[in-house]
């Protein structure tokens, strides 16, 4: 099963993933259309910044078992049997907040999706796009390889269980690669150093 794999050390914080996520989950699916809809579409992936100035794209991991699915008292949250994606049936959702309480990654938000109706929002791994043979919008938007769409097993095979658990957390390698952003990484490390010296 392919899933979105996050490599935070490659993220440059451009927020394109959340932008394209919101567009792809809008009714018009176009940028100009999406920003002028009466109920604005919302992103399901967010990029945070750590105190060390490292970017951290955060989205639903589609955990197995999924704490949100277990906590859902209306069974609005379910796992798609075929793809393994954890989905929300918005018409069953009553916004009780149980899933936000259960989610260890803080990815659930509550937003209106039609007039007068709110529902829990979270990543659906672009199941509609996948049905059309496309990769998830956030991965398509990511220009730096911080978001990948690949077989979990393929990556897990490469190393130990420890690595697997790191992937579960969205972290694959702890040491930032110098790569194309060597100067940026160096600059951020410098900032970090100054911060440490001051505190």
């Amino acid at each position, binding site marked *: 099963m392919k899933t979105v794999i996050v490599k935070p050390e490659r993220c440059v914080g*451009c927020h394109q993933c959340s932008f394209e996520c919101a567009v792809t989950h809008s009714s018009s699916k176009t940028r100009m259309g999406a920003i002028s809809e009466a109920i604005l579409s919302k992103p399901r992936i967010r990029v945070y910044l750590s105190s060390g100035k490292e970017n951290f794209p955060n989205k639903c991991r589609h955990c197995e078992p999924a704490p949100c699915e277990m906590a859902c008292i209306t069974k609005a949250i379910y796992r798609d049997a075929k793809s393994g994606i954890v989905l929300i049936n918005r018409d069953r959702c009553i916004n009780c907040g149980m899933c936000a309480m259960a989610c260890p990654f803080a990815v659930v938000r509550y937003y209106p999706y039609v007039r007068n109706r709110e529902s829990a929002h979270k990543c659906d791994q672009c199941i509609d796009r996948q049905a059309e043979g496309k990769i998830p919008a956030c991965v398509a938007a990511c220009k730096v390889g911080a978001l990948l769409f690949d077989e979990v097993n393929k990556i897990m095979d490469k190393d130990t269980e420890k690595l697997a658990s790191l992937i579960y957390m969205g972290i694959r390698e702890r040491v930032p690669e110098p790569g194309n952003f060597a100067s940026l990484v160096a600059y951020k490390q410098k900032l970090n150093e100054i911060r440490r010296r001051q505190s």
Partner: protein
Amino acid sequence: MSEFSDLTICKDAQIMLKKAQEEGIQTAWDRLKKQEPQCGYCELGVSCRICAMGPCRIDPFGEGPQLGVCGADADIIVARNLARMVGAGSASHSDHGRDLVLVLREIGLDKTSNYKIADAAKLMLIAKEYGINTDKISEGETARQLAEAMMEDYGMKKGILSFISRVPKQRIDVWKKVNVIPRGIDWEISEMLHRTHMGVDNDYVSILLQAVRSSLADGYGGSMIGTELSDIIFGTPQPGFSEVNLGVLKEDQVNILVHGHSPIVSEMICIAVEDGDMLALAKSKGATGINLAGLCCTGNELMMRKKIPMAGNHLMTELTIVTGAVEAIIVDYQCIMPSLGQIAQCYHTKMYTTSDKAKFKFMEHVEFTPQNAREQAFKIVREAVENFSRRDKKRVSIPCTPVRSMTGFSVEAIVAALGGTLTPLIEAIKAGKIKGAAGVVGCNNPKIKHDYGHVELIKGLIANDILVLTTGCVNVAAGKAGLQVPEAKELAGPGLKEICGALGIPPVLHVGSCVDNSRILVIACALANALGVDIDKLPLAAAAPEWYSEKAVTIAFYAMASGIYTVLGVMPPIGGSTKVVELATSGLNNVFGACFAVEPDPVAACTLITSHIALKRKDLGLGV
């Protein structure tokens, strides 16, 4: 081939794209694909890189930040970004114009033997417009005085641009009301940059009004000076025939291309290729001759005046190298893709930069000055001829035969074709034979199917009896589609067909390069003055179906501010501010009597323009 027919309507481009793919050459289309999806914040104009408290961006979906670090909201950020685009476009045209002023001054001071006055009559006319008493002074002195008067247009001594005198009084009153009469070309552009510095102008309307003012400094300043001086120095264009498309390249000749915008360099190359010694050298290398062709707007300049054929427009520039038949490309500035040098490395093609302002990787720099221009031109042409023997004949592919195209419709030429006055045109408009006129201008943009936007829109317009004036990259599109020959009248509506038949002109007139949009302004002003009405009352429209450049935004701005309804085929980066979008697409109407529309579909754009022209005709009491 079908995959390429989604990218371009041009057969020659499709064949070359296939060749490029086979030879592993990346083109703008490939690079666009790699960029996609492009930055959504930037596309909506809500990202700001103006200061180092940033970069900032506004979240258009409401979850993230709604203010930049400085506190600017989406409206301010969008307005600032757009205004800076206008400023940059204005700067580009005007700096091009400045180079011509400098050449004119050198001529006047007799400091160059390479450049001369080609149209002395026009020099006298323009000098008079500038209030120079030409009676007792020499041609050279007139040139010097005119050049120096124009330098003041760039500066801050005068406080108003000289060519504003060409504008109808009603229009000037409109501009006075909102305080957008341009004072000095460089003044408005640098004030534009000043106002968009953090913490200066933070009222989006005020920012955009300054954008209007700096665009007018281009249209009635930098660009107009550029056009008029090009005519004075190199000759006012007269109608004549030339050819377009990649077929203008000759398999058995040395092919030299000029690319860029200014005629200063290309005119010199034009002299060098006609030199007998060069021809002899070419023959000694096994070529039957030296073939010069143009690309982009410098090509338009040469085509207008010297009837030199054009190989292609903006998106064709990379593909010309792919033919494998080009010995040298000489570039000056603007719209030269940095990829060209890299692509030329894959062939024997040599590339030369000529301006200190525009240097590129993988291109040899040969600085042109008014003093050394001839010498340098000969040096380059000689190297190009010598390069002929390095051509790999197996890789040469010239995909088609050229299409005939009529060119040279300067304002003077149009007036002459009409028999000396604009009256026949006005009568034809009044009688409804010509419903109106539209300027179809602008660039190519790989986001729009290459040339499709231009050609479809033009076909629709002429079928509706609307006379079309084209500049810039549109010329090549229209020329290749066979729309710029007198026979194209068959595609026009009955009224336009009759007029074109009577005058022996095409329904689509090649009026020049992109600075020559000023010619369209001159005609519009003259028409309005002749009718005694403001420009916004006239049945006119403008369109930029495939625009990409900052210059195009500036052109759109000065067209709109002159009272001409302007339809854009590509959305400018303003979507992130509802207020700016509303202002641009309707609010401006209340101020300038014209506004913008965005319509990527040329068929729909044609409907927008025809209904706009019908409305204007109705308001003038003319039959629809």
